């Protein structure tokens, strides 16, 4: 399988998923009107990665904004990571980045960590 690189736009985030290092990154803004078409290839890539993941998987989330339609898609990505963790093939960590003082974004990360089992969430503040 290949690395997945998608350049960011003013409505969709930058994506860099590397199967050899296990470093996955999503950054920027995610506010498309129909998120499913954007997130579908990400789901597919992760499902393929699930078969033979790297020993350590780090999902670095550096989102400035995301809309509710993206929030559903993000949960789907977390669900696949949860499966990867639970099969014991890879140790998965989510690094949830948010701008200092952005309580809503911090809370959004905590919300996901409540819904997902077995994955460590680390919170990192970005100085504003």
């Amino acid at each position, binding site marked *: 399988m290949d690395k997945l690189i998608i350049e960011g736009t*003013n*409505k969709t985030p930058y994506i860099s998923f590397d199967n050899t290092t296990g470093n996955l990154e999503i950054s920027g803004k995610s*506010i498309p*009107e*129909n*998120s*499913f078409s954007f997130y579908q290839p990400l789901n597919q890539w992760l499902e393929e990665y699930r078969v033979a993941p790297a020993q350590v998987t780090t999902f670095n989330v550096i989102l400035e*904004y995301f*809309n*509710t*339609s993206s*929030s*559903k898609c993000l*949960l789907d990505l977390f669900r696949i990571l949860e499966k990867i963790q639970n099969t014991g093939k890879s140790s998965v960590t989510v690094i949830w980045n948010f*701008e200092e*003082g*952005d*309580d*809503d974004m911090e809370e959004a990360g905590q*919300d996901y960590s*409540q*819904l997902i089992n077995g994955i460590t969430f680390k919170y990192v503040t970005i100085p*504003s």
Partner: protein
Amino acid sequence: MKKINLYKTYLNMEKEEVILSFKGDITKDLLSSIYQIIENRLEHDAEDQKRKKKFYHVLVECLQNMYHHMESLKEIPNEGGKQAASAIFTICRSNDGGYKILTGNFILTENVEGLKERIEYINNLDPVSLKAYYLEKLNSNELSDKGGAGLGIIDIARKSGNRIEYDFEEVNTPYSFFTLAAKIN
């Protein structure tokens, strides 16, 4: 012949502290431009970061809510035929330094009751219950025909921290005009 004069409109918009107002077809490209205009404006506003972020977030949800309504209603009947369904929105400052976002679009009258009940239900939840309801909907497999599981309205109430104001006006069988207003303090 009627004199052309926008002064009254100007004064009215000035009084209401309108930042941006638009009436017409709501396309993805239009929304991109709107986000860009607002982002540029916010960049130059030296004010509360938190409020700016909340405002931007609520704005995106309000406009996309309207966009999805429009998508499901391509045209509405007009005298002597049909016309493309258009919508309206206005973004204002409010006198306490916050923002107000108003959207107006046509919906089928048969959907009015359901939508009204949903908004009322959300308006009557306290912040803790609202969060629980949001997580429940996020975690459920249920999806609306727009794919959002109806999270948008909940999020508007959650992020704005205010009740959602709304109005329905039956205009032309079988259509009603739906006005939604979100206020960010």
